[in-house]
């Protein structure tokens, strides 16, 4: 059965800290790995990763995929209170099916 597991489930840090969120997957016909940020409402897209070893960056956020070991990490440097959210990863199986992990709830304290 397909599964996507995220760790840790929750995390509390102080502003300025660096955090690493993990996502491991076992998905047949894997195509790509996506990261989303969910604050109060809908998930918003952060990254899509399809190739191993190529880091994607957007400001203080970066992510990388390892297709051999079947995991991805999302790094956030110099965290701010606005980074407080649930971070979701999803594996795309085939063309259409997205399988989401349980999410990591990040809280950044001022």
């Amino acid at each position, binding site marked *: 059965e397909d599964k996507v597991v995220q760790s840790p489930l929750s995390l509390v840090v102080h502003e300025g800290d660096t955090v690493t969120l993990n996502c491991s997957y076992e998905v047949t016909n894997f195509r790509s790995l996506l990261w989303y940020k969910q604050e109060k409402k*809908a998930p918003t897209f952060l990254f899509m990763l399809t190739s191993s070893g190529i880091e994607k960056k957007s400001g203080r956020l970066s992510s990388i995929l390892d297709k051999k070991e079947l995991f991805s990490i999302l790094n956030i440097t110099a965290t701010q209170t606005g980074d407080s959210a649930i971070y*979701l990863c999803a594996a795309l199986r085939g*063309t259409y099916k997205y399988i989401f992990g349980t*999410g990591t709830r990040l809280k950044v304290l001022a």
Partner: protein
Amino acid sequence: DTAVSQTPKYLVTQMGNDKSIKCEQNLGHDTMYWYKQDSKKFLKIMFSYNNKELIINETVPNRFSPKSPDKAHLNLHINSLELGDSAVYFCASSPPGQGPYNEQFFGPGTRLTVL
């Protein structure tokens, strides 16, 4: 300027009632989805339509029936609502094509509360 919209945003209803949630996207996407997010924030896919054709139908009670009148709309009808149906329901869409570049865009969600 809304990309994926859902109505209503909130729905409070009694057990046993029938209700519908509507979703529309103006992104020109071929594929639309319904997800259920429970109180633990776990997002689970329910249905997906591609060009009005049902392509994913997960293990969902048959009280839930999706309908896609055209590729810009995907509605969800729920019969005989139960307490366990209380959740946030998200609609999403993704672009056409069979490549691995299918980022999903989510609607704002409909919070359903069954009393």
